[in-house]
C-alpha cells in the first residue's frame, strides 16, 4: 500500500509530457509495431495500429489518459487475441505479440515523463524481441535505426531545449548511436558466449519455404518461384561444371499415387563408395527448419553433428534454425551400392496399386521390347520425353487422380517434379529399382565473392535407377526435355515465365547484395564460441577461453572509457593568446605572493606587483604597457604585439629579487 502511495506521489510530481515528446513516443511505438508485423497476425497488428493512431489523435485534441474503465477490457481483449492467434500461448511468438500489445497499452495511459521513460525502456526490449524472428541484415539495420525515435523521445523528455523539426531531433540520436558503435562492436566480439542455453531454446514454427522430406506438385511449384538464397558454396578447388552441380538433399522412396515421401531414416550407415574424383567445399546453409544438409552429389563423409545415411543423405542432428556452415567432401564420379539388398530392392520397386494403368501398360510394353536391357528402357523413357511433344513450364495444367497417365498421355507439360516422378514410376513399372532425389541444381557463380549461390528457385528433382554392375545412376529426365534447365536454370528454361524486371543490372545488384548478406551471415550471425576462440590466432594465441575474453573485454572497455573521457574533457574553448600569456605571468607572480584579485584590472594588478617587487619595476612597467598594447590598441591583437608580450613574459624573472 505504502509502495503504491509512493509511486502515485512520484507520478504526480513527474512533469507532464509535451506534445513533441508524445508524438515521438507514438512514432517509436509505430516502428516497433512495424518491426513485428511480419510475424503478428494481420488483424492483431491492424488493431494495435488503430489503437495507436486513435491515442495519438485523442491526445492531440486534449491531453489526458485513456479512461481507467477502458484499460481492463482492452487488456482482456489483448490476452484473448494473443491466445487465439498463436498455437502455443507460451511460445516466443505469443510473448512478442503480448509485449507489443502492452507497449501500445502503456501509451494509452502515458501522461508524464515517468510513464514515457518506462514505455521507452520497454520499447527497446520489444524491438530486440523482433530480432528473435529474423536476424537478417536488413531487419537488424531497420531495428537499430528503430532505436532513433526511442532515443529522441528520451531526449525530448528533458526540459529547456531548443525546438527543432522532427528530422533534426533524430539527428543527435543518430550521432550518439554512431559514436557508440565502435564500443558496441568491440563488446559484441568479446562478450563471452554461453556454451549451452540457460533455458529452452526456441522451437520456432515459423514456416520457411524450402525443400522438405516429401514432394508434391503444388509445393514444388511455389519453391521454383522463390528467389531467396538457400545455400552458398565455396569450393577449395575449381568449381565443378554446371551439369555436375547436383546438390542432394532428400532421397524419396515412397510413392502413394500423388506425393513422394521419405521414410523414417534408419540407423543403417552408408557403405563405402568407390570413388574416382573428389572435391572439398564449404557450404553456408540458410535456416531451413529441416535436418537435411544439401551436399554435392555424392557426399562421402559427414560433417560434425551430422550423419550420412545409407542412401547418402546428410542429416544433421537437429533442425537448422540458424545459418549453419559445414564442410563436406563429395565424389563426382562414383559407384554407389553395386549390390542391392533384397529389402532395398523391394522398396525401390513398390508402386501403389490401382493407379496409372496406361503408364503400367507402357512400361510392360517396353520391357517386352527390350528384354532385360534396363539401360535401353531408361533410354526409351528419355526419348519419349525428348521427342514426345513434352514441354517445360512452371505452370502446368492440373493433373487428376491418374496423375502420371494424365501427364504422359494428355497434358505433356510440367517441370522437374512431374518429369522425375513420371520417369521413376515408369522405371518401377518396368521392374527397374528407382527412386526420386530432390535437392538443388545449378546456382549462380558469384565471381566477386568466388562462391556459388544456390537459390530456392534452383530446387530440382531427378531420379536414380539401379543398374546391375553400375549401382545407382543419376538420371535427370528434365534434361531430356529442356537441356537449358540444367545449363541455365529454371527461370531461363521457362521462357513464358520471364518478367520484365529480371534485367541484367538488377541481377548484378542482387549478386552484390548477396555478397553482403553472405558476409553478414558468416561474419556476424555465425560468430560463435568457436570463432571467438580463434580470434587471436594471428597473434599466436589459439584458444581464447572465457576468462581471457572477459579480461580482454574489461581492459578494452577501460581503453574506450579513457578515449571517451579524453574527448569529454578536451577544452575546445578558444582562448585569446595574449590572455594565455597573461595567465602565465599571473602564475609567475603568484609564486611570489602577488595574487591577482578577482575582478582586478591588468594595469592595477601590474602596478601593485611593481610596488611589491620594486626591483622589477621597469620590467613590470614594460609588461603592463605591452599587454595594454595587445589588448586595447586594436580590436584584434596584432601578431607582433602578442609576440612581443610573449617574449617579455618569458624573459621575466622574479628569482633573486629581495622583496
Amino acid at each position: 500500500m505504502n509502495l503504491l502511495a509512493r509511486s502515485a506521489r512520484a507520478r504526480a510530481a513527474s512533469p507532464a509530457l509535451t506534445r513533441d515528446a508524445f508524438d515521438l513516443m507514438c512514432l517509436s511505438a509505430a516502428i516497433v509495431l512495424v518491426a513485428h508485423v511480419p510475424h503478428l497476425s494481420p488483424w492483431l497488428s491492424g488493431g494495435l495500429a488503430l489503437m495507436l493512431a486513435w491515442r495519438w489523435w485523442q491526445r492531440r485534441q486534449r491531453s489526458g489518459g485513456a479512461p481507467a474503465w477502458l484499460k481492463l477490457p482492452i487488456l482482456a481483449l489483448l490476452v484473448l487475441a494473443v491466445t487465439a492467434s498463436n498455437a502455443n500461448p507460451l511460445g516466443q511468438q505469443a510473448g512478442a505479440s503480448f509485449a507489443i500489445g502492452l507497449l501500445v497499452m502503456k501509451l494509452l495511459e502515458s501522461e508524464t515523463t515517468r510513464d514515457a521513460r518506462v514505455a521507452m525502456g520497454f520499447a527497446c526490449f520489444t524491438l530486440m524481441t523482433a530480432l528473435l524472428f529474423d536476424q537478417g541484415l536488413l531487419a537488424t539495420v531497420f531495428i537499430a535505426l528503430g532505436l532513433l525515435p526511442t532515443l529522441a523521445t528520451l531526449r525530448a523528455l528533458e526540459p529547456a531545449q531548443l525546438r527543432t523539426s522532427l528530422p533534426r531531433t533524430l539527428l543527435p540520436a543518430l550521432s550518439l548511436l554512431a559514436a557508440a558503435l565502435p564500443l558496441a562492436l568491440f563488446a559484441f566480439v568479446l562478450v563471452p558466449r554461453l556454451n549451452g542455453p540457460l533455458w529452452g531454446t526456441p522451437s520456432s514454427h515459423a514456416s520457411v519455404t524450402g525443400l522438405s522430406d516429401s514432394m508434391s506438385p503444388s509445393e514444388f511449384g511455389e519453391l521454383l518461384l522463390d528467389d531467396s538464397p538457400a545455400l552458398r558454396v565455396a569450393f577449395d578447388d575449381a568449381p565443378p561444371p554446371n551439369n555436375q552441380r547436383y546438390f542432394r538433399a532428400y532421397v524419396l522412396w515412397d510413392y502413394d499415387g500423388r506425393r513422394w515421401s521419405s521414410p523414417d531414416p534408419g540407423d543403417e550407415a552408408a557403405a563405402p563408395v568407390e570413388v574416382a574424383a573428389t572435391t572439398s567445399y564449404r557450404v553456408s546453409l540458410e535456416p531451413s527448419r529441416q535436418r537435411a544438409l544439401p551436399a554435392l552429389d555424392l557426399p562421402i563423409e559427414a560433417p560434425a553433428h551430422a550423419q550420412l545415411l545409407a542412401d547418402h543423405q546428410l542429416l544433421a542432428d537437429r533442425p537448422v534454425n540458424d545459418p549453419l556452415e559445414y564442410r563436406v567432401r563429395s565424389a563426382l564420379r562414383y559407384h554407389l551400392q553395386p549390390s542391392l539388398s533384397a529389402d532395398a530392392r523391394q522398396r525401390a520397386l513398390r508402386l501403389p496399386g490401382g493407379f496409372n494403368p496406361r503408364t503400367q501398360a507402357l512400361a510392360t510394353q517396353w520391357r517386352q521390347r527390350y528384354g532385360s536391357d534396363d539401360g535401353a528402357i531408361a533410354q526409351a523413357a528419355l526419348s519419349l520425353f525428348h521427342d514426345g511433344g513434352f514441354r517445360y513450364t512452371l505452370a502446368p495444367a492440373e493433373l487428376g487422380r491418374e496423375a502420371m497417365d494424365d501427364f504422359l498421355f494428355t497434358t505433356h507439360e510440367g517441370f522437374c517434379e512431374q518429369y522425375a516422378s513420371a520417369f521413376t514410376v515408369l522405371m518401377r513399372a518396368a521392374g527397374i529399382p528407382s527412386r526420386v532425389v530432390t535437392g538443388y541444381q545449378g546456382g549462380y557463380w558469384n565471381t566477386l565473392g568466388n562462391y556459388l549461390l544456390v537459390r530456392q528457385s534452383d530446387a530440382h528433382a531427378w531420379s536414380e535407377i539401379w543398374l546391375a554392375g553400375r549401382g545407382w545412376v543419376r538420371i535427370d529426365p528434365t534434361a531430356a526435355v529442356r537441356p537449358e534447365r540444367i545449363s541455365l536454370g529454371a527461370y531461363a528454361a521457362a521462357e513464358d515465365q520471364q518478367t520484365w524486371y529480371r534485367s541484367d543490372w538488377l541481377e548484378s545488384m542482387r549478386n552484390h547484395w548477396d555478397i553482403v548478406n553472405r558476409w553478414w551471415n558468416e561474419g556476424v550471425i555465425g560468430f560463435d564460441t568457436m570463432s571467438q576462440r580463434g580470434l587471436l590466432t594471428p597473434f599466436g594465441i589459439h584458444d581464447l577461453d572465457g576468462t581471457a575474453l572477459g579480461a580482454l573485454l574489461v581492459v578494452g572497455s577501460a581503453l574506450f572509457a579513457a578515449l571517451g573521457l579524453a574527448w569529454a574533457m578536451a577544452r575546445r574553448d578558444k582562448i585569446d593568446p595574449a590572455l594565455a600569456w597573461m595567465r602565465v605571468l599571473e602564475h609567475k607572480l603568484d609564486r611570489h605572493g602577488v595574487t591577482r584579485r578577482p575582478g582586478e584590472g591588468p594595469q592595477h594588478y601590474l602596478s601593485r606587483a611593481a610596488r611589491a617587487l620594486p626591483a622589477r619595476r621597469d620590467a613590470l612597467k614594460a609588461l603592463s604597457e605591452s599587454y595594454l598594447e595587445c589588448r586595447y590598441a586594436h580590436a584584434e591583437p596584432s601578431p607582433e604585439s602578442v609576440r612581443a608580450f610573449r617574449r617579455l613574459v618569458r624573459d621575466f624573472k622574479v628569482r633573486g629579487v629581495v622583496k
Partner: protein
Amino acid sequence: MNPRLQRWAERRLPALTRYRRPEGLPLELHRRRIYIVPTGFGAAFAVLLTVMLVGALNYANNAALLLTCLLGATSAASMLVAFRTLDGLRLASVRADHVVAGEAVQVQFEFETTRLRQALRLDLGPASTAFAIAAGRTSVGLPLQTAKRGWMPLPRVRVWSSWPLGMFRAWSWLHPQQAVLVWPRAEATGPTPPHHDADQQRHRLHQGDDLAALRDYRLGDPPRHIAWRASARHEHLLVKDFEQPEAQHEWRLDWYQLAGLDDEARIARLARWLDEADRRGEAYSLRLPQQQVPMGSGAQQYAQCMSLLATLP
C-alpha cells in the same frame, strides 16, 4: 534528503558530501567538481540491458546481442555527454534586487559558455528552474526566500543536468561568495513622524502668501479658499492653492527621537516613515547612531537610508 541529516553530513564528512566553502566569482565548472551518478531510470535501464544480454546470449542470437551492445554503449556515451553539458560552464556573476525581509528576492545568476548547452537545471533551496544556454551569456533568475534584515549570504546552488537521455545525472555545487542585502520590514501601522517647530513656523508663514496657483475644486476644500472671482470666468470652481509650500516641508527622521522602543521596533518605524516619505515624494534626512544621511529625496536617497537601516547591528 533530510536537510538536517545533510547539514550534519556536510559538517562531519565534507569530502563525502562534496561540500565547498564559498568562493569568489567567476566560478568555472571543471572535472574535479562535476559528479555523475545514474538516475533511477538509468539503474532500471541497466537491469533491462542485463535481461536483454542474457536473453540474446541464451538464444545465441547475435543480432540481438549486437543491438544490446549498441544500446549499452549508447548509454555509456550519454554519460560523457552529461559531463560535457556541465564542463566548462562559468558562473560569471550573481545579482539580486533589493527586497524587504520576509519576501522572496529574485536572484539573477549569469552564466557564460562558449557553446550551446541544453536542459541545464539550477536548484536554489526548494526553487528550481531549467534553462538552455547558447554561446555567450545567459541570465537565470530564481526566487530566494528571505527572513530577516541585513546581509543574507547566498546559500549554495546546485547546477545539474540529466541531458541527453535521462540516465545519468551530472551535478555540481556552486557556492558563490555573495550576499543579498535584505531591507527591514516596515511596521504595518503607527504614528506619523513628529513635525519640527521650524516646519510649523514656515508652514504658517507661507500660508496665504502664494496665491499664484489656482486649481480645480476638489471635494473637501474649505469654501474660504475658493477663488470666486476667477471661478466666475470658468466652468468649474477654482481654488487658491495653498498646499504648495507644504510639499516643500522636510522630514527629519531621527533614531533618538524614538526613545522607549527597542531597536527592531525603531527600525521598523523608521522604515515605514521612509516608505511614506518616498511615496509622497518628500525630502527627508535620517539620523542613526553612527551615521547621518543629509536631506534629500528620490530612489537613491531611499535606497541609501534603507540599506543603512538594514545593516544596523
